């Protein structure tokens, strides 16, 4: 009898250890970006398309102040309220000491330089699709931005979601680096896929999530979702609800005007502000991608 108990105990320890090992925070060494040199100009385009400033600037910042990535904006969700951290170049409060591989591990694996899991409010489930070169470029551009000594504020996340170890399980279930839209895509649609699925992280708001907060794909992809902050919802981007022409979409991404001459509001106005800075061909590429929806047909 006692022997069985000991065996069971050993088995339990092995299972737990195996579980912790499987769900450990992943990271790559410097070889992930070996031989790559970051380009500041290209990095600025990555920064703009990825909308870094929209979440990491101070609440209500405008113009040049948008580039001071002091953090502090709060994002409510069913799992708690997340506060964007300081990602300015401050060596102590920001990410001034980060190497390019550190940035890669954050964006690709959702892992901090200290080897901790980040919460997926930081949209690494989308950024995982970024190319190593894009990360190297972004790292070069971030290094040109100002430092700010404001300390990052803690997230307000209750039990059980405050157990970061469990995020390894979330990643195991939902973190995928392949493209969601498959099949034959022309050049514009492929560029649109980079902008929508990786950098622009559109699905983080516009796709519904399952009970554990994983993004639904297939026909649900970009089909609209309730606002996790509790007020209103994010529009469905699939037909027939999304009926705008490609030209109308490009106009919206440029000026913020809808075909009815309503104006983008809320967080989407930040997105439009970013998209308006990209080349027109990029805005057209996003429109081309959206016109291939819905998936799974």
């Amino acid at each position, binding site marked *: 009898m006692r022997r069985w108990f000991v065996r069971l105990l050993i088995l339990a320890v092995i299972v737990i250890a195996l579980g912790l090992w499987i769900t450990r925070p992943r990271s790559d060494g410097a070889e992930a970006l070996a031989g790559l040199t970051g380009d500041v100009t290209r990095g600025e385009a990555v920064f703009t398309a990825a909308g870094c400033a929209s979440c990491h600037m101070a609440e*209500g910042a405008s113009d040049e102040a948008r580039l001071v990535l002091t953090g502090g904006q709060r994002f409510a969700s069913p799992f708690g309220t997340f506060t964007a951290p300081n990602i300015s170049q401050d060596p102590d409060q920001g990410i001034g000491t980060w190497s390019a591989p550190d940035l890669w591990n954050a964006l690709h694996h959702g892992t901090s330089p200290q080897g901790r899991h980040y919460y997926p409010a930081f949209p690494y489930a989308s950024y995982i699709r970024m190319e190593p070169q894009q990360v190297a470029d972004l790292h070069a551009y971030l290094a040109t931005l100002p430092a700010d000594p404001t300390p990052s504020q803690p997230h307000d996340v209750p039990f059980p979601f405050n157990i970061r170890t469990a995020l390894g399980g979330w990643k195991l279930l939902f973190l995928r680096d392949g493209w969601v839209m498959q099949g034959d895509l022309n050049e514009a649609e492929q560029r649109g896929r980079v902008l929508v699925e990786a950098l622009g992280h559109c699905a983080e708001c516009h796709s519904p999530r399952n009970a554990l907060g994983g993004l639904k794909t297939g026909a649900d992809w970009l089909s609209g979702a309730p*606002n996790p902050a509790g*007020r*209103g*919802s*994010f*529009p469905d981007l699939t037909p027939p609800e999304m009926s705008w022409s490609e*030209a109308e979409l490009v*106009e919206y991404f440029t*000026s*913020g*005007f809808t075909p*009815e*001459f*309503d*104006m*983008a*509001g*809320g*967080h*989407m*106005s*930040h997105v*439009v502000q970013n998209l308006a800075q990209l080349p027109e061909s990029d805005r057209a590429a996003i429109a081309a991608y959206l016109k291939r929806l819905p998936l799974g047909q």
Partner: protein
Amino acid sequence: MPTIRPLALGLGLAVAVVSAPPLHAQDAMPNPAVKARQSLMTLFAFNLGTLGAMAQGNMEYDATAAGAAANNLMALSHLDLAALWPEGTDADSIDGTRALPDLWANFPDVTTKIAALQTATTAMADAAGTDLAGLQGAMGPLGAACGACHQAYRASE
């Protein structure tokens, strides 16, 4: 322990039932202030539509029509319509509006943003009737003025 008389109890209940507002009263009869401000936005959008269609090349440039639309926008932006945003008509208090409570907490900023809108509509009124390039140039700042308020004070759909 005092007893509550059945008659008094019944009367109290009856009063409570009669005085309670019907469910979804706002759906049946929109708040007149909300209705009025949404109509104001429709008027903005309609006149913007004329200018936008010309700016985007979807309608042939017509100096008279453009000038009329731009003058309308300028007039609309100069109306004193503070009464359309009474206290208690934010999205947390009533249905049928996306106006955020922050609007009522930041009146000085709202006033600044309205002044920026007036500057933009005045620039458009000066430019729209002159030529297409002028109209197109005034469109960006005008859109930005609209967007500034929607970004801060209107909820997602």
